[in-house]
């Protein structure tokens, strides 16, 4: 049974980050089952990597107290118009954070 108390020794670093700043990515629409931190309004949308933040366990696992492999987190920037078609301003953007598992590359 996994320990209740996360400890560094149970964690392994992720392999090298898959994306770099400026890469175009699409947010996956994985099934919702019991818990998720990936907002519905960004799923399927294409955005740009704005920053690499840190490595951490996945929310869906941490929520059930699982420890384990660390994954790279990113700040992803979207055009508001890509998220909400009726949004009135062209240049506004929205940034949100996502672990690597929820992102897939977009060929530009």
């Amino acid at each position, binding site marked *: 049974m996994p320990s209740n108390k996360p400890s560094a020794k149970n964690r392994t670093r992720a392999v090298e980050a898959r994306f770099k700043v400026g890469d175009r990515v699409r947010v996956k629409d994985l*099934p919702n089952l*019991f818990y998720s931190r990936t907002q*519905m*309004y960004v799923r399927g949308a294409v955005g740009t990597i704005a920053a690499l933040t840190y490595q951490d366990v996945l929310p869906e696992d*941490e*929520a*059930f107290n699982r420890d384990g492999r660390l994954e790279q987190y990113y700040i992803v920037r979207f055009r508001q118009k890509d998220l909400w078609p009726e949004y009135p301003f062209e240049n506004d953007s929205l940034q949100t954070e996502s672990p690597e598992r929820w992102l897939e590359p977009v060929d530009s």
Partner: protein
Amino acid sequence: MAVRDELRQQLELIGAIQPALHLPQNWNYEVDSALFKAYLHPPHDVGGQFDAPGVYEEKEEEQWELNTYVTCEVLGWRGIWNSEERRRRADNDLGYTLYLGIPYYGRWILAAARMLVDKNHVSLTELIEKIAEVKARYAKQ
């Protein structure tokens, strides 16, 4: 005891707070995939949803809310749960009726109690008896 008088009122209230789905349903034999996906949507993912009309007010934390916050943080500090687990239990696992119906820190304290029972840090009997004892003490004052 006013227990029996309260019962009728409780039954009416419980009926009134069932989630309004605007669809007839009761143990459906078949659920199409769109509806199934909607059922499994995590309640805390509210971004982009249509808002219910409401009046927003500035409000300071009350003492019980601060106590709840500290209690939940201490439980985290002691390694009993982590903040993601707290979020999962307090935002998702309580379900839509409680998520939408009770105050923010009300969800936290219910989730903390449930977690302590789930993890056998306290038995449910012990907890129920303690709540009854405290309620009786307050009633005397």
